[in-house]
């Protein structure tokens, strides 16, 4: 099987008057269709930069990124990007928020709208369709943001610390919700997080980055006895601790 996404030898630097900051150095990896890849690394190492490059928000300088064999990711209807905060607009209803992407790309076709409607039903937001975002709980907001991203039916989903604005308890639940939604919609996903437990509980593979300039230290495959185990249960599984220690060691040894 050929991978959905192939990143090869990507290097990226920011240029400012005070100097050049190399954020990524020689990053090479690939992601298979339906896979859930989690990226962890020290703060400021270049994780968000990597996602911005993948999404085409910033152009690549060196190296190449291929999505299902199209060499350049022009922007990018095929990639959904979920930011750290939900950024639901208070001046729109929940429904108007989730169809924002369709509206922008002028894709408000009956099929697409029906898909949105179905997702709102499936993920418990249908009764809040005409509510304002401020009436939603933190978890519901995050689900609405996810539906907004999924409405455009991207083949690759990028998530940049999507739970970091939530309190711990909500976070565990939303993590479960989002995971099951992504699996149910059969999406390929790349998630960035600081939280090692979160990484282990969701990932098929974990990509560990070094301090800035980020290079790949290790790509770790994660296997649990039951491959369909939801994140919450994984946290209790015996393998969990083993993976945690391995990543912890990897992040805390130098060189």
């Amino acid at each position, binding site marked *: 099987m050929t991978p959905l996404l192939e990143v090869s030898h990507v290097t990226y630097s920011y240029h400012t008057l005070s100097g050049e900051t190399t954020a990524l150095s020689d990053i090479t990896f690939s992601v298979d269709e339906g896979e859930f890849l989690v990226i962890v690394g020290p703060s400021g190492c270049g994780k968000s930069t990597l996602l911005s490059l993948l999404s085409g928000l910033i152009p690549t300088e060196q190296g190449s990124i291929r999505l299902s064999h199209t060499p350049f990711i022009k922007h990018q209807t095929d990639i959904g990007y979920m930011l750290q905060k939900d950024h639901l*607009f208070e001046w729109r209803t929940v429904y108007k928020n989730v169809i*924002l992407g369709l509206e922008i*790309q002028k894709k408000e076709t009956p099929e697409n709208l029906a898909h949105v409607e179905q997702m709102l039903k499936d993920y418990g937001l249908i009764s809040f369709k005409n509510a304002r975002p401020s009436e939603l709980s933190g978890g519901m907001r995050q689900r609405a943001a996810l539906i907004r991203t999924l409405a455009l039916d991207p083949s690759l989903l990028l998530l940049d610390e999507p739970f970091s604005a939530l309190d711990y308890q909500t976070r565990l639940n939303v993590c479960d919700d989002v995971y099951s939604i992504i699996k149910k919609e059969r999406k390929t996903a790349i998630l960035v997080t600081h939280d090692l437990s979160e990484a282990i509980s969701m990932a098929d593979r974990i990509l560990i980055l070094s301090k800035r300039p980020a290079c790949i230290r290790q790509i770790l495959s994660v296997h649990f006895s039951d491959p369909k185990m939801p994140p919450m249960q994984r946290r209790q599984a015996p393998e969990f601790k083993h993976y945690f220690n391995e990543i912890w060691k990897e992040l805390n040894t130098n060189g």
Partner: protein
Amino acid sequence: MDKLSKRQAEFIKNHRRHHYLVSFFRFMAFFSFLLLWEVSANLHWIDAFIFSSPSRILETMIYMAKDYSIFRHTGITLYETLLSFFLVILVSFLTATILWFSGTISEILEPWLVILNSLPKSALAPLLIVWLGANTRTIIVAGMSVAVFGSIISMYTAFRETDEEKIKLIHTLGGNQLQVLFHVVIPSSLPSIISILKVNIGLCLVGVIIGEFLAAREGLGYLIIYASQIFKLNYLITALIILCIIAFLLYQIIQNIEHHIRKNRNL
């Protein structure tokens, strides 16, 4: 509806009572002032020729209403103010949009805008008369000149303060700059735009009156100057009072619009 708890009911009662008290004394203060003014004019404590009096003002108003001149002057000032206000909003919105689109243009123009804005605009009025002639157009431009530069600067600042992450969101959904403008920048600047409106309506009125002082044959500004020259102070004070009422009403209209928008858009 739920029955209110006793404490809540009491709180609401106290709040109302306070509200009535304030309204009552507001009107009392106003009426005492009118009364004192009237009495002191009649008893010759003050010179009614210079200070006028409520009854004389009322008389003047009735007199001017009979030959419709009061409506003509008020109408003209109102028309000029509203027109210059709409033009200010239009010009500053378009300019702020252009500045927002092009960082380079805004960098080039910013110091000039600041200089123009800090100029005392009443000094421009005589120049405008020479350039444009003594007509309505000049007065409208004078009204605009007071407000427009500050309005551009504030509106551009409001546009620039838009949350970068919200802009990024539109880009992640495949939107272009124009869509960023309409979906994020304008909606999130709306509260600032409304306060800009509030400031500008007053400024336009100031500018129009200055213009009318110098270049008009009609309007409240003209009436004030004319009355002061022939020493008809009843007319002058009447014009001032009408100005007060206009300023208050215009502000009130914008406040109502604001209220409406806030309720609709849930800001």
